[in-house]
């Protein structure tokens, strides 16, 4: 396996014109599993090499290990554990996980289910009678924020304020100085600060007052690793919010889009509700919300597929390409919810494997089940739909659907 220069290929993938269908470009990219770029970074696009590198301890998630520093993703504030390495990553993730899943908090997602169903139900009630709905604006976008507010313990009356911050913040993530008004960036910075302050206030109130929400649990933890500092709690809450928002939006929107493109499977889902479980798994492979982990840093020289990536290099992980690798998945461009052995890369792998996977799955399962149950003969208004700019978190910005039944 060799290293060749394929800068054009990557640029074509990142270019907005490829957003609606990057998959043929991924196929070309995979001809060079580990591709060195002109700027010295490396792009990895095949399943085995991605799986290898995600388990390679010589790769770092900490920007400071890049020889060419990156524009900092999180301006100011303590970084969150997604951008940290062991041992700090492991410690903070462990402390957060204690309150988020098994073995210490096993029933979290199950306990949330009635709430998830009710939230989706409420959002869809608001659409009743409309001939056209936007799956993104009317359901996929508001849904995860509600869920995370509930988990963190944000009081219901504050949710509208919270939503505005989240919108501004998420909007600013793919800020492009060439095309976007500066206001967009400023709003994002302001929102981040407001949100931190607001969360800080919530954490403060919770000290010494044990409760069931995540902030209260983190603020009063007496686990084996001790307690997070308030700064760490705020960063972690921020991370859950950001990592769990647009990803889930995309999964639901991509899911509905894929179902509308495969009407026979949509029909099957109506009669076979259990199909939703493997179906969401297949979505995570076939139309994943996260296409690229834009960078890892080579902490020391790393060998992948006989290529040595020098220390300090930026490494780009093309997860969505790996999940369509014909060397790993039979007939990879076919959407097949009956696929067995579906070890996709949708949630990453290794120590940074998505922390919210069980929750995200359940959110998407419930949203898609309800959509299919309640929409009457839905059809796409535009195919392909308009996409968000980001090649990293890829998904429609709107997904308008008509209901024939009125």
């Amino acid at each position, binding site marked *: 396996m060799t290293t060749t220069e394929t800068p054009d290929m990557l640029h074509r993938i990142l270019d907005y014109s490829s957003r609606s269908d990057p998959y043929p470009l991924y196929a070309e990219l995979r001809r060079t599993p580990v591709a060195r770029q002109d700027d010295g970074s490396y792009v990895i696009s095949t399943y085995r090499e991605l799986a290898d590198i995600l388990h390679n*301890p*010589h790769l770092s998630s900490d920007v400071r290990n890049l020889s060419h520093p990156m524009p900092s993703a999180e301006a100011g504030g303590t970084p969150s554990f997604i951008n940290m390495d062991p041992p700090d990553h*492991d410690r903070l993730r462990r402390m957060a996980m204690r309150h988020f899943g098994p073995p210490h908090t096993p029933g979290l997602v199950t306990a949330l289910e009635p709430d998830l169903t009710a939230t989706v139900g409420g959002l869809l009630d608001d659409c009743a009678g409309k001939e056209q709905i936007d799956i993104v604006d009317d359901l996929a976008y508001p849904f995860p924020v509600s869920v995370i507010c509930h988990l963190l313990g944000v009081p219901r009356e504050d949710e509208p304020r919270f939503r505005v911050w989240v919108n501004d913040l998420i909007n600013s993530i793919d800020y492009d100085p060439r095309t976007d008004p500066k206001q967009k960036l400023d709003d994002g910075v302001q929102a981040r600060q407001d949100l931190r302050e607001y969360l800080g206030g919530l954490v403060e109130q919770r000290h010494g007052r044990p409760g069931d929400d995540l902030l209260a649990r983190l603020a009063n933890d007496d686990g084996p690793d001790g307690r997070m500092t308030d700064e760490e709690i705020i960063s972690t809450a921020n991370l859950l919010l950001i990592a769990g928002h647009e990803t889930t939006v995309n999964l639901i929107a991509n899911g509905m889009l894929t179902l509308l493109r495969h009407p026979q499977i949509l029909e099957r889902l109506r009669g076979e509700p259990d199909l939703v479980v493997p179906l969401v798994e297949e979505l995570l492979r076939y139309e994943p919300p996260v296409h690229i982990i834009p960078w890892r840093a080579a*902490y020391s020289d790393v060998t992948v597929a006989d290529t040595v990536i020098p220390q300090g290099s930026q490494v780009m992980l093309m997860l969505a390409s790996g999940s369509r690798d014909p060397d790993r998945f039979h007939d990879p461009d076919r959407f097949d919810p009956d696929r067995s052995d579906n070890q996709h890369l949708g949630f990453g792998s290794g120590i940074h494997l998505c922390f919210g996977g069980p929750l995200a799955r359940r959110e998407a399962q419930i949203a898609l089940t309800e959509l299919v149950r309640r929409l009457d003969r839905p059809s796409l208004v535009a195919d392909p739909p308009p996409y968000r700019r980001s090649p990293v978190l890829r998904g429609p910005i709107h997904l308008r659907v008509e209901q024939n039944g009125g």
Partner: protein
Amino acid sequence: MTSADNLRAFRRDGRIVIVGASLAGLRAAESLRAEGFTGSLTMIGDELGEPYDRPPLSKQVLTGWVPAGGTTLPRRRDINAEWLLGVPASGLDLATDHVRLADGREVPFDRVLISTGVRARPWFVESEAALDGVFVVRTREHAEGLQRALAAGPSRVLVIGAGFTGSEIASVCRERDIPVTVAELAPYPLVGALGAMIGEVAADMQRAHGVDLRCGVKVTQLEGDAQGRLRRAHFDDGSTIDADVAVVALGGIRNTEWLQGSGLAAGVWGIACDTGCRAMDLNGLITDDVFVAGDVARCPNPVYEYRLISLEHWANAVEQAEVAAHNMLHGQAERWPHLSIPRFWSIQFGVNIKSVGVPTFADEVVVTQGSVSGHRFVAAYGYQGRVTAAVTFNNAKWLDHYRRLIETAAPFPPPCPTPDQPVDTKPVPVDFPGPTLLAQGATVVVTGHDPGERRVTAAHQHHR
């Protein structure tokens, strides 16, 4: 059974017998059906009831989390088999292709899979082993009895042997706040499997959890009272302790006695086979219709100089079962070799221990990631300059990387630093007590002179 037609006919209506109806046996049966075997399938097992899982027996079952009857193995498909349970196989006749049962029945086969596993090594004095309060742990019934004894709140438990099972049981005792003494002949717990450096860490862990750990001592006698209940244990240094429960955790004995006289290469070390899981006969020739899988198998591994290696690992049993099943149904050209790198896990004292590779096949060991004192680290094992194994304490997510290093014979010590760099990165001698991969005493003798007449005889037959 060589021609393609014969094989097709065999797959359609041949007869397969599986002896040993536990993890390896069940998984092989499922794979046979999954691969399209439609002939008759007979499962012979000396235990009654559905096949069940053993790892929880020294863990969740003893803590009381899972009832002993609650570890039934999940069924992945219907195997449509005839089950002959409760009677052991007592012989294998390869001249007529029959399995003999202890009650005299004979079961004919075209191909047979042997997956009779191991049993617990009992306490060496029978009358002492029979005392009330003396346990081994291999079966569901054993675990159930021990769990009941622990629930009754014994004043002290003595664990004899600090291998994985013994250490897990000691951990459960501490979790249940039961005083426990662990007696181990070697200088540290787990040292036989993982070497002195990790053994030292394991010793710290035990002591930090309040285990009364006594290494370098031998239990010489278990003493009972007039009612036949365990009261006291005597050590070779003259000391004694009072205990009402003793768990004998001195490893296993491979269930191969029933194969005496069968002509197979079966002995205390297991049944030798090739990487295709086909059994060897006494002369070391591969047989065609006898297959072996699981704890009872002794299989060469090319990564480890083709040495024959016996493993008592869950994952190994499953993988061998699948390879054996596949090969039972396929001709030479389509056969699979069992080439996976061994994996093992254990949970004790709140630490998730995992290993990949064969740690006993090593001369040096080095901590490559994490912190030993924090009980979260990766240690890599090396043999003559290449990586041969790795062990993780609460750091299992990295194992895949080390598996790749082993598979690719990567240099030892691994040269490049990682973000979680340990304080001390100098390799140390691995230090196992005694020869590990070497046999202990003769099991066969060779007779004859001409190449055409040279033969191997099992030692027990020869000396009879």
